[in-house]
């Protein structure tokens, strides 16, 4: 698969995402730090827009993001503080949702590494505790709709044909 997204729980309280992009580091960094660019892609599920995207990208600066569901007007907001800003390769910030369902805030570290015009993005989300990460994971599981038994069975069936000798 082209530029596949990988997500893995790591250690007690981290979640790590990695993905490649066909663009130089500087552009990927811009897309994460310039509000007019951020609000064009960081939208979440289909049907949501991002009416508020304020970012003061410097160490100690704050940011504020609000998403709006177009069908019923409901909103979801979050924000935090930039702890470390090192263009174009590293951005460390805190993150807290207005209606956080988990204790404390998470610490997000974005690392960009360029290699031959392509960029590997690694985003680490460190939650305050194992319990906080558990809450995040649990909420995801509760909101998840129809269990993907079928797809899972297909995956299991395909590995079963390969492994036994």
């Amino acid at each position, binding site marked *: 698969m082209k*530029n596949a*997204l990988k*997500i*893995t*729980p790591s250690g*007690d309280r981290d979640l790590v*995402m990695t*993905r490649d*992009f*066909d*663009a*130089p580091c500087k*552009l*990927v960094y*811009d*897309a994460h730090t310039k509000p007019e*660019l951020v609000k*064009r*892609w*960081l*939208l*979440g*599920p*289909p049907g949501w827009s991002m009416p508020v995207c304020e970012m003061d990208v410097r160490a100690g600066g704050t940011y504020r993001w609000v998403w709006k569901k177009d069908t019923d007007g409901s909103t979801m907001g979050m924000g935090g503080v930039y702890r470390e800003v090192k263009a174009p390769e590293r951005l460390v910030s805190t993150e807290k949702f207005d209606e956080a369902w988990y204790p404390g805030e998470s610490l997000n570290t974005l690392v960009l590494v360029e290699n031959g015009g392509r960029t590997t993005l690694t985003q680490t989300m460190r939650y305050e505790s*194992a*319990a906080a*990460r*558990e809450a995040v*994971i*649990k909420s*995801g*599981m509760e*909101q*998840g709709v129809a*269990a*993907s*038994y079928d*797809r*899972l*069975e297909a*995956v*299991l*069936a395909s*590995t*079963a044909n*390969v*492994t*036994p*000798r």
Partner: protein
Amino acid sequence: MQATHRLDAIFSALADPTRRAILARLASGQASVNELAQPFAMSQPAISKHLKVLERAGLISRGREAQRRPRRLEAKRLAEADKWLERYRQLWEGNYQRLDTLLDELKAKERKPQ
């Protein structure tokens, strides 16, 4: 076991191809340790070790029949891990596909400064 630790246990249990094959076999019905060991070029103790990992992760359980103690799949547990990861992945994949498009546009602009 706490939910997070359980999820971690599930992910590491699924990382091994033999264990995935065992789960696939159990998806078509319960089986004894001997029956499970058969298709693999593996000793029974080696299979038992894999079964222990799967059991600890809550992915399989043991039946009550005293002699055979057949193992069976706990499909709910498996679906739990799968559902969460898939939902999260879809959300971010949607974001990153939009970012791909945006980056293409930015690259084109850089090539043709106005």
